[in-house]
């Protein structure tokens, strides 16, 4: 990800700035109106968080997905930048996803409309912080500005890198890092009401191994020890890195379920009434007081 060019719309006689479309700040996320879901993506470095999120956006570029249609994105350029490096337009021979830089709290946005409920739109804001930041957090309890976002997220998604799980040389280290991260999050930051899910990416690399089930069980056992309420799911065949059979399934395994989980009402629901507590909206939870200028008109 690169720097945003313009942070917010400002009006003057000469020109009007338009948001960069690269990423949102916490203050900008607070201005997103309507039904909001805040999902924090946590993972050790190079686990594929950005790839996972870009993979979700790419599915909507191909059509309705997981029972939802695309209703907009305030970070469309950010998603496109990520996908560019995985496409032939980049001139590359192999996909290359930009690494989220240290201390960079990337907030990505997707507005999704449930096909079963026309006219309804769910605004989803996803925190994609750097893996190094989460490593520092485990070692030193430092999470910077991301701390408030993680704390007040509706859901936390722990990404476990399936490629490192598939390799016997890195498997235990990957499981241990994930366990320590989940434990640190649970003990230091998360509210009891926060829903957590661990997802093993690149499952197609694991499922062909004789020990596939054993590996998933090991991850489940270790993460349950860190947080008994954490479920473990698998996502394979992500379109960005893992070539799918040409005649294979059109939907990456598990990704549709993941999208539905991300936008579904959590255990502590933000329903129409609960989403707007007295004096604030969900995003106001991580908004620095007094920093946000609310425009006269709203979007959508």
């Amino acid at each position, binding site marked *: 990800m690169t720097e945003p060019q313009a942070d917010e719309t400002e009006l003057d006689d000469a020109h009007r700035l338009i948001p960069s479309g690269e990423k949102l700040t916490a203050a900008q996320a607070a201005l997103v109106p309507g039904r909001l879901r805040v999902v924090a993506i946590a993972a050790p470095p190079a686990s594929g968080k950005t790839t996972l999120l870009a993979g979700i956006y790419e599915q909507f570029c191909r059509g309705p997905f997981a029972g939802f249609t695309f209703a*907009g994105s305030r970070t469309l350029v950010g998603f496109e930048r990520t996908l560019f490096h*995985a*496409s032939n337009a980049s*001139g590359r021979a192999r996909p290359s996803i930009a690494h989220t830089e240290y201390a960079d709290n990337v907030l990505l946005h997707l507005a999704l*409309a449930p096909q079963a409920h026309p006219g309804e739109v769910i605004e989803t804001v996803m925190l994609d912080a750097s893996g190094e930041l989460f490593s520092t957090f485990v070692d030193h309890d430092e999470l910077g500005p991301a701390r408030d976002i993680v704390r007040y997220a509706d859901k936390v998604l722990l990404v476990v890198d399936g490629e490192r799980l598939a390799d016997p040389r890195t498997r235990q280290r990957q499981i241990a890092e994930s366990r320590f991260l989940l434990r640190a999050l649970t003990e230091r930051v998360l509210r009891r009401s926060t829903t957590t899910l661990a997802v093993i990416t690149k499952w197609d690399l694991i499922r062909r191994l004789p020990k596939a089930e054993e590996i998933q069980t090991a991850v489940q056992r270790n993460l349950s020890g860190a947080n008994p309420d954490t479920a473990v799911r698998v996502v394979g065949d992500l379109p960005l890195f893992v070539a799918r059979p040409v005649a294979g399934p059109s939907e990456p395994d598990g990704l549709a379920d993941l999208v539905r989980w991300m936008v579904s009402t959590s255990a502590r629901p933000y329903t129409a009434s609960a989403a707007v507590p007295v004096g604030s909206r969900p995003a106001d939870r991580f908004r620095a007081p007094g920093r946000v200028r609310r425009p006269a008109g709203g*979007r*959508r």
Partner: protein
Amino acid sequence: MTDESVRIALLGFPQTGKTTYLAAFYNALCDEEVVSPLKASALPAQATYLMTILRNWQDALPTARTPTIEQSHVELLLSHDERVFTLTMPDMSGELFQQLLRERTAQSPVYETLVGYATYLVFVHPDELRERVLLTDIQAAQESVAAVVGRSPTVDTAAVRDFEVDRLPLQSTMVDLLQCMDELRSGSAFRLALVISAWDRVDHSAGSPERWLTDRMPLLSQYLRNARHIRHAVFGVSAQGGAYDAAGSLAHVPYADRAYTIVARTAERHDITAPVLWAAGLAEGLG
């Protein structure tokens, strides 16, 4: 229609057929042989510009592109069902919209155009979709080929390129533009007639223009269906009638087939004015 003035802005990136459409539209207004519910009541003030692009169109020559950093402003006195009204149509250079998305700054007159109208004709060209091809899909296709022929195909390696905002897939660029409009307009509602240019060159198995949009530009299609502030309809327009032959001529295309519109859902054929009629609220059934 109670208002006697209708203002419709033409939007589109370079080479999307805006000026060609304007020429064919003006021809339909002026040529009594063209059956059209809209007719010109008087010569416009901008007769020089309109006559230039009209003569090029009639001679089957390429219409001159709207110069960069310029806006051609057309004001026409039209009659429809014995009523007379003024149609104002600015035709802005497509480069200005590219600049807007690249620099994330709306300068006048782009700003005035994007916020000052309630009705737009937005042009997309099927030859400029710039569809994304993931490297993994290429790899999968190569593996399939290798499985059949027994060896991997030769892969051309191109120079690594930097990301450019104005080279996104067209459907993403259009959503970005519409979202920028929404931001500048603070969510105020508008009508949008989406014109798919060069419809004569589109694979007709695609069915209606709306079906084509759903299949070929699914992100834009989904966005438009969900955007509560945009009332939209999709039109397939052939304003040129075909591709120029090797001699640079369109003489092989019959005059009657030079310009027509395929309307949104029914795929029925109408004259070239259909998108304007719908955008102006004069023919809701076309949308």
